């Protein structure tokens, strides 16, 4: 059953690649499927810029996003180590006190995660980013899950770079730099929407993504059109209605608590 779902995921990811490919949407799909298929509770994906600094590209929920940012801001954590060393790193129990991450470990535990794994995203010798997997229960990730995680990460790397046999650095640079900037366009659109709709950033993102899907648009294109004033903020809330009217209403009422999401609640 799980294998079928894995195959479906690969087909779905491949579809995303050929049909109106959007990098950010693709990476979001990837972290969501990672959670579903790898027996983990949350996932986040980071890519590096030209300066070797990681940027959060996708996360399965806001708590993970906060934790990923925590790693970047504190210059410490499994994702950074996986990126720096090009190898898989992890901890089966962050409460054990034997991890190299004195600041990250308690922050992760506070957010409800006690086990973590990070897989480097590599293309031959070059590491372009990392996938972080979080679990609420202690223990090693199974060998099967690890193999699957590696497969997903490899697909993500190939998908992101849109080319199987990249011979030259130019193409990698074009794709990565464009992807990193697309993420910024989306953050700007989120801010604009959050202000116009009086909602938090995650609700703004849900609206944006819901509309993009309902109207079969690329997420970063849509973000650009929102910024250019070609689509009114209120229309995006309507876009959610197509996927179920209750969803948008719930999203709007969640605004007051959803924004900053730094409490230690379980995701």
């Amino acid at each position: 059953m799980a294998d079928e779902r894995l195959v479906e995921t690969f087909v779905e990811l491949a579809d995303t690649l050929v049909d109106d490919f959007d990098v950010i949407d693709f990476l979001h799909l990837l972290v969501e499927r990672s959670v579903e298929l790898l027996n983990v509770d949350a996932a986040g994906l980071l890519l590096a810029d030209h300066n070797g600094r990681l940027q959060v590209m996708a996360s399965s929920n806001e708590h993970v996003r906060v934790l990923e940012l925590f790693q970047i801001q504190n210059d410490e954590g499994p994702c950074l180590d996986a990126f720096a060393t090009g190898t898989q790193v992890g901890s089966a129990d962050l409460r054990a006190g034997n991890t190299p991450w004195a600041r990250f470990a308690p922050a992760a535990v506070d957010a409800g995660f006690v086990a973590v794994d990070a897989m480097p995203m590599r293309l031959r010798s070059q590491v372009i980013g990392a996938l972080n997997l979080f679990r609420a229960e202690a223990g090693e990730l199974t060998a099967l899950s690890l193999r699957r995680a590696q497969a997903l990460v490899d697909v993500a790397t190939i998908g992101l770079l849109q080319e199987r046999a990249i011979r030259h650095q130019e193409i990698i640079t074009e794709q990565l730099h464009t992807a990193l900037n697309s993420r910024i366009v989306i953050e700007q659109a989120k801010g604009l929407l959050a202000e116009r709709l009086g909602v938090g950033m995650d609700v703004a993102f849900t609206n944006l993504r819901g509309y993009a899907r309902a109207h079969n648009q690329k997420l970063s294109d849509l973000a650009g059109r929102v910024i250019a004033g070609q689509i009114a903020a209120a229309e995006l809330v309507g876009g959610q209605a197509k996927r179920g009217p209750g969803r948008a209403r719930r999203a709007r009422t969640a605004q007051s608590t959803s924004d900053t999401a730094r409490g230690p609640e379980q995701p």
Partner: protein
Amino acid sequence: MTTDGDRNTRILAWVTDHARHSGTPVSLAMLCETAVGRLAVSGVTLLADTSSAWPELRHATDMLGARLAELQVTVGEGPFLDVWREGGPILVPDLTAPVIQRRWPLFGPLAVEAGAGALFAIPIVVGAVRVGVLALHRVRPGHMDAPALLDALAFAELALRLPMGAPDGHDGTAGVDLELRTPQVHQATGMIAAQLDVTMAEAFSRLRARAFADQRSLADLATDLVARRLRLDPNEPT
């Protein structure tokens, strides 16, 4: 933490050194001149936003760079314009390649005729905020190696930190990290654009001006804005 060390810091030091030796302030022109020497290219061209639809030529280190910029305005196509529209780099190691000649049927042959072999155009951009294009050219075709390409991206990011309005001016903010990896900076920019009903570019410059005035980091100020602990005053000077 990284394999690259701090590339941005190194690039800023190069430009600062070059400016000091030339006895001039750090400027976009100095940035271009430094890039020519450091990246082993024939010339560097910088285009920046204007009120018109085309990015305007701000500096070219040689005649060929100026010619390449002019050609694209004349024929209405080319890598600078594509970079400007799409916001991602366009790196062309061989302008004579058939795929490139087909991509820009007007610009392609004219660029080769003008004497260009390779052209690497990088956006000076923050999300939807299009500031300009930094372009490197070589008279001979050839790939740029990975470190040089990454350095070129760092030059483009440094160009963001220099005041575009005054090409030879220097307001002391060149060393300030724009913290582009902090999402709150971009979220706050979007919020300001909505609050003040201004463009994203205007919102970003207001955010920077306020951070500079308050002597705070952009990320710190942005976090307060996103948490709605602070709003910018529409009448605040920029």
